[in-house]
């Protein structure tokens, strides 16, 4: 008896899987299947109680449900919406959140230290040095922010987020060195020269990433 029961369960599940084949996963789909499963099972049991055998009760129960295509279509749309913004794994979310927090703290730390030092000794050249913390801070924040994504934009792939963060870091680092050299030497030429190297590298990297942005995404959904 128990065995026959689980065989029927399997049959209903298989039918529902086939019915919703190709529909994107979603919590709603999962619940809809469970709802249909329970109700179908009860209906089959009713038919069996009227003296029908199992296989014809199964067939009859399914036929008598009517045309489920608009329900399937409805859930297909839900599945597509969910697919567009894949949920991050708990680990990735934790990494992204940590990146955002550490990034913000480091940026602030850099800013506060600069302010502190600038009051301690009046030489700007030395007090600006901790700005490097802010450079790394913004870079780490960029990484976390891109990895996490927003409600309008799905989270980025890890490698891509790292590269974006690097390009942001390079551009800021170029500004940082330029300011630092200028403050120390008081000359413009060497500061521009040193800035150029990192700035160009940063911009180059950013442009590459920007131009290879997977725009097909819009079309494929």
């Amino acid at each position, binding site marked *: 008896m128990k065995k026959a029961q689980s065989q029927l369960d399997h049959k209903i599940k298989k039918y529902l899987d086939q019915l919703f084949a190709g529909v994107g996963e979603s919590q709603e789909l999962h619940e*809809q299947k469970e709802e*249909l*499963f*329970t*109700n179908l*099972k009860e209906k089959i049991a009713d038919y069996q109680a009227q003296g029908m055998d199992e296989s014809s009760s199964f067939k009859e129960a399914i036929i*008598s449900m009517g045309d489920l295509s608009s329900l399937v279509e409805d859930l297909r749309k839900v599945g597509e919406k969910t697919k567009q913004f894949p949920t991050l794994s708990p680990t990735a979310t934790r990494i992204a959140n940590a990146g955002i927090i550490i990034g913000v703290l480091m940026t602030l730390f850099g800013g506060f230290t600069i302010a502190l030092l600038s009051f301690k000794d009046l030489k700007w050249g030395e007090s600006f040095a901790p700005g490097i913390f802010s450079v790394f801070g913004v870079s780490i924040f960029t990484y976390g922010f891109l990895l996490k994504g927003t409600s309008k934009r799905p989270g980025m792939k890890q490698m891509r987020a790292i590269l974006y963060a690097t390009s942001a870091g390079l551009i800021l680092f170029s500004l940082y060195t330029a300011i630092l050299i200028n403050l120390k030497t008081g000359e413009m030429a060497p500061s521009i020269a040193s800035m150029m190297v990192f700035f160009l590298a940063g911009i180059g990297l950013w442009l590459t990433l920007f131009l290879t942005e997977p725009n097909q995404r819009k079309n494929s959904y």
Partner: protein
Amino acid sequence: MSPTISTDLIRGHTTTIILNILRQGDSYGYEIYKKILALSGNQYELKEATLYTAFRRLEKEACIESYWGDETQGGRRKYYRITAKGKERYQHSKREWNFAKEILDRLIQGGLEDEEGSKSTGS
């Protein structure tokens, strides 16, 4: 051949029928289906496919809400409960129906002559 209700005629009333069932107590898919069948005196079957689509729409419109039962044998049932908004919607639809019912009856069965001609035909 006994007359049947055409799908066209009932389509606009599916949600009102469901709300009428839920107004009398929480219920789940297959039970709602059976209740509608019983209420019609076995004269009308509202397909389950139509029901499930309607549940989704009604829930989205906050006219009903759902919760899972705690059955352990044979899978959990998804129960539906009517909300305050759903009750309001039901009352509104019922008023509309009572009004339409009378007018439609006149439009389908009545004749203009019957009304004013009652004097002439009456004699």
